[in-house]
């Protein structure tokens, strides 16, 4: 498999016939991206994994059938599949079973998932070194998962101001942790 193929070329390759290598490459390429979407919207690793599997099955099904008319719009197609699948996940377990039965054997094993390691002690120092408002905004946002409006109300500042404070704090934390902005 020539892994230099771009996404659109992969789409064409898969649509032209039963090319398992091209399908495996598409899976390898798209699975981590779809899983990030799943983590963001479902906040659960297993659910994100289920989403990934279903979205890629749906995508392969469409590509094999040549239903993606504009191959360069693969990301747009996958995003649509992600949205539909998130909606379907809770209400249509039967379709999941049917698709897994039909396509599951074709799918490669899940791609191992991990987040970058951060030095906990260093991060603690970096958080403590933020200015008071920045520390409160970051902790309330990430721990409490409060919206900017909620944090703004609690701190007596504007919604936009919370976003500015959070942006500044994120950049300072990344810089303090030695990560490029």
């Amino acid at each position, binding site marked *: 498999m020539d892994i230099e193929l771009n996404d659109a070329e992969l789409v064409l390759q898969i649509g032209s016939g039963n090319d398992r290598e091209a399908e495996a490459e598409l899976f390898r390429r798209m699975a981590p991206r779809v899983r990030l979407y799943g983590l*963001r919207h479902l906040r659960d690793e297993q659910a994100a994994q289920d989403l990934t599997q279903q979205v890629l099955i749906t995508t392969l099904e469409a590509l094999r059938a040549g239903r993606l008319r504009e191959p360069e719009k693969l990301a747009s197609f996958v995003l649509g599949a992600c949205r539909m699948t998130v909606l379907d996940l809770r209400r249509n377990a039967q379709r999941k079973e049917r698709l897994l039965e039909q396509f599951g054997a074709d799918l490669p094993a899940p791609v191992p998932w991990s987040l970058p390691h951060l030095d*906990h002690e260093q991060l603690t120092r970096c958080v403590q070194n933020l200015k008071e408002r920045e520390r409160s905004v970051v902790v309330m946002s990430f721990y409490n998962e409060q919206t900017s409006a909620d944090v703004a109300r609690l701190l007596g500042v504007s919604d936009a101001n919370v976003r500015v404070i959070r942006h500044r704090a994120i950049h300072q934390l990344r810089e303090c942790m030695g990560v490029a902005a």
Partner: protein
Amino acid sequence: MNCANPINAAVLADYWLAALAGPEEEAVELHLLDCDHCGARLREVIALAEGVRKIAREGSLRMVVSDSFLKRLADEGLRIREYAPPAGGSVQCTVTAEDDFLIARLAANLSAAKRVDLCLCDERGVEQGRMPDIPVQPGAGNVVYQESITWAKAMPSSTMIARLVTFDEAGDERLLGEYTFNHTRSMPGPGAWPPVA
């Protein structure tokens, strides 16, 4: 794995927090489904968010928090020890091994204060540290301060004075409230801090 137009890390944090408007979120998602470089950056942001969550649950940060933050901690089964001395008053306090968080609720009239500093002083009232421009909710009537539980558990019996101060038009400091904490050690450890060399 490079990107000619990488998404700003702060925008990725907004994305993770579901803080982007619909069209902006869609643009970010389309980009992420097409770009492993920015996907890696998002994973860094998620790791940062998870790290901050973990640190927040340890109770070791000194910071101003909100009641909803305390409620979330309590909902998670974490044990919060809270003291609420009146302005100008004092309180007897301690921490035990079972405590996860130590909170001081400092009552004050904050309605006219544009900037508030929290000063931490020794038993003589000599300032040992200052948290400038703390976040305050003007109508709240108090500041909820989280002391480091790690530090408090190691602290020998001693007195700490906290002061909330604001500034008038001329920039002169004005006291909003002073609060004395008479801490009694209830855990094994040294009877006093070692002398400063």
